[in-house]
């Protein structure tokens, strides 16, 4: 049996989360720093996860998240609530990442191959693989993806954004996101094929 749809989002925001976000954004736009700090606490980890997979240097990723959040603080009065707050924040970060890429010379993609688990090990390698090993394999597989596919996969599958939201963040179309996601999933599966029974 095969399935053609995306796996379920991991962290889809609830309607209440969205309302709380709007209230926090409004308060922050009126100068409430505590409200903004709550926004940082809510969304900072997701933004950092995304940035750490979008750029290869961890320090640069952290700097970009910082730049994006400070830019958000300065421009919150322009957040109109039509998008979800996290979509708006991811959009700012994606723009910062794209600008950083344009500024620096091209850095070759690290062509690290995943460390294959022992093929003749006992039982189901997926079931018995440690989370640490699986995560390392996934990180390595992600690094082999073109940056656009990697961004799309992380935003949809890890951060739970909808495909239209990702299209808004990356300034493209939902159809393009769907295509990138399909290819990313197929490539990841191929890269991680040793993890399948």
């Amino acid at each position, binding site marked *: *049996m*095969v*399935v*053609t749809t995306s*796996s*379920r989002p*991991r*962290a889809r925001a609830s309607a209440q989360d969205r309302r709380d976000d709007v*209230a926090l954004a*409004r*308060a922050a736009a*009126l*100068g*409430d*720093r505590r409200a*903004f*700090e709550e926004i*940082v606490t809510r969304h*900072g*980890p997701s933004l*950092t*996860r995304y940035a*750490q997979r979008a750029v290869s240097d*961890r320090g640069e*990723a*952290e700097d970009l*998240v*910082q730049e994006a*959040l*400070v830019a958000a*603080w*300065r421009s919150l*009065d322009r957040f109109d609530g039509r998008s979800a707050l996290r979509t708006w924040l991811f959009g700012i970060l994606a723009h910062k990442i794209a600008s950083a890429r344009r500024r620096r010379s091209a850095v070759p993609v690290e062509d690290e191959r995943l460390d294959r688990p022992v093929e003749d090990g006992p039982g189901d390698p*997926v079931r018995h693989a440690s*989370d640490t090993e*699986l*995560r390392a394999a*996934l990180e390595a597989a992600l690094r082999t993806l073109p940056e656009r596919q990697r961004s799309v996969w*992380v935003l949809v*599958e*890890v*951060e*739970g954004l909808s495909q239209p939201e990702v299209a808004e963040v990356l300034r493209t179309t939902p*159809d*393009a996101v*769907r*295509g*990138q996601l*399909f*290819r990313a*999933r*197929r*490539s*990841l*599966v*191929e890269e*991680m094929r040793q*993890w*399948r*029974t």
Partner: protein
Amino acid sequence: MEDMTSADGPGRDAPVSVEEEALLGRSARLLASEDPEGFIDVSARVRSTVRATTRRSRPVHAVFPEDTGTVVPEEDTLVVREWVVVGELREAVGALEGVTPTQITVTLDGDVCTGAALHVTATFGAVLAEAATRVRRTVLDTLEDLLGPAAFDASTAPVDVTIDDVLP
């Protein structure tokens, strides 16, 4: 729509199987559950930067209080930035029961504050006319306290209150 076929090899355009789906799902959940290393440091830096970051904001004329017992020379000036005024109004109006400010605009003629416009949401059950009156009075009192009566004429300044929504 993008072409989803690929020349990368056989199987590249095939959908993923249930087993593969499970592997990808487990992998994504692993990443989603992690607290990213370095975020504590990022958060601290952002908080520190935000505390030190002021927004572009117009100057608003104010006067020194007269009841401090200190003589203030006439040439001395006191200026309050617009966003400080907005912050004070947000605190004051936000402390009122049954209303939450959502937009605050200070009306300026040059650097002289001549009024304010507020959008608020009201809590379901609040008497709207009464809530609007309390908002208006609070705005006038706050501006007069902050800027000084010589810099803000609360007896003539218009305050526009818009109740955007009534929420549970």
